[in-house]
């Protein structure tokens, strides 16, 4: 079920590591299943742990994870049921605080505030590139994993990325299309002409700007203006794209 919903989640060994070998973990007490009309529709898991406060005292906390909903049951409140049940289960088992570690690109970051969660820390991700070719693959995969608001549907954009590595400067270009908010690489040769937006930048700026897309308009604007002033971002766009962008910024 986890592999079906997360496509993929992981191996059976990985499951045993987190679910069976985790100290104090009891599958019958830490895992919840949500059923709808007798069908397994979703679920979630609570991992319990102690935490130190600054005065050295300890409190019980829980980590919420592996919240999933089967695709046939999405949009029916299964996620809400699972999340509320997990919080209640944790409270009854003595947890004082709950934690979650969502990616900024995924739905839980947007959904969790409904269940009382609030962003408390912003860890900084750092990456050292040893193989530039794979790094480009990683970056383009990342672009395709992103989503854009519906107003950007049907735009085409070309992304030219450069990266300065010890072995030399690397530059790669790809064209993408937005379809129902999903960004996909365009394989249609004719679509490579008439693109709405041409972006030339370096890998660092792409990482900064793509994450700021999800961190709020002010952060996005700051990242864009900084990159433009430092001449690390160049773009050309059509009137159609400008209209969409202004609409999004003023919304």
């Amino acid at each position, binding site marked *: 079920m986890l592999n079906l919903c997360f496509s993929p989640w992981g191996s059976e060994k990985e499951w045993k590591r987190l679910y069976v070998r985790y100290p104090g973990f009891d599958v019958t007490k830490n895992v919840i299943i949500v059923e709808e009309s007798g069908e397994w529709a979703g679920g979630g898991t609570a991992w319990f742990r102690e935490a130190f406060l600054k*005065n050295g005292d300890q409190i019980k906390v829980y980590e919420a994870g592996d919240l999933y909903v089967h695709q046939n049951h999405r949009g029916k409140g299964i996620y809400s049921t699972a999340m509320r049940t997990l919080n209640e289960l944790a409270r009854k088992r003595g947890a004082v605080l709950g934690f*979650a570690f969502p990616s900024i*690109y995924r739905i839980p970051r947007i959904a969790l505030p409904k269940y009382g969660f*609030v962003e408390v820390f912003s*860890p*900084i991700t*750092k990456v*050292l590139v040893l193989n530039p070719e794979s790094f480009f693959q990683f970056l383009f995969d990342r672009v395709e994993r992103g989503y854009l608001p519906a107003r950007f549907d049907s735009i085409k954009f070309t992304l030219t990325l450069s990266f300065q590595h010890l072995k030399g400067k690397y530059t790669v270009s790809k064209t993408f299309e937005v379809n129902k908010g999903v960004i996909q690489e365009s394989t249609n040769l004719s679509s490579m002409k008439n693109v709405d937006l041409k972006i030339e930048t370096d890998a660092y700026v792409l990482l900064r700007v793509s994450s700021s897309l999800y961190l709020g308009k002010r952060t996005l604007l700051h990242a864009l203006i900084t990159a433009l002033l430092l001449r690390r971002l160049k773009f050309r766009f059509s009137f159609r794209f400008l209209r969409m962008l202004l609409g999004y910024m003023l919304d």
Partner: protein
Amino acid sequence: MIDEIIDFRDRTHKDSFRFVLTPKHWKALYASEDEVNANGMVTVTRNGVLRGYAAYSLVVFGKIRTYEILDICADAKEVANELIEQIVESGLRHKVDMVFTRNCKEAHDDIFAEKGFLSFVDTVVMAVLLSPRELLQALSKKTPNFKVLRLSIKGFEPVTVKVGKEGITVVSDEKADLSVWTDNKTFMKLFFGKTRFLREFVKGKITIDNVLRLLTAWHFFNLIKQEKWYIPLGDWI
């Protein structure tokens, strides 16, 4: 060795909000080995004394091989530098494409930029308040010369606390000198130092019945605030 590592981590981050790490947790979260992840560890010792360690994991996504640094803990910049060099050397030997780390704010943070790491934000740590009474109880200690504050957090039973110069004590059935109202999200942000008391007060997220006691409320939130945190990637589920 695991006991020594846990002791070192606790000493290095003794003032930080952090999860308790036991040898069993270490084994499950940091030192596991299976077909997906191959974990490794590097240490630096000087004159037989542990000065730093790092735990990392090989993660394979399709054709991309990455090392994820699960935890890196050092008592000096040059030690952190040596640990990173050891991981990178191992990465090059094992044909790893990238080395990732998701850092808490640390003393030797600038070393990553010096080594050529690119930094960005792609994850957040979120927290939910489940029991304010238990939380404040854990922070309680004897408090002479106090004022009594009644804290009402939306969705929870009010908690009465004595607020002294150096600490707080949870009490019951005491007449309050002031009452403070807030919501659970504002409380959490204040608790983890994500926002400032005055800012939230001006925004109307905190209400006080006796404005003359504003400094007591401010002092209360300063006393409970967890300024530092240490939840490395290995502790994440």
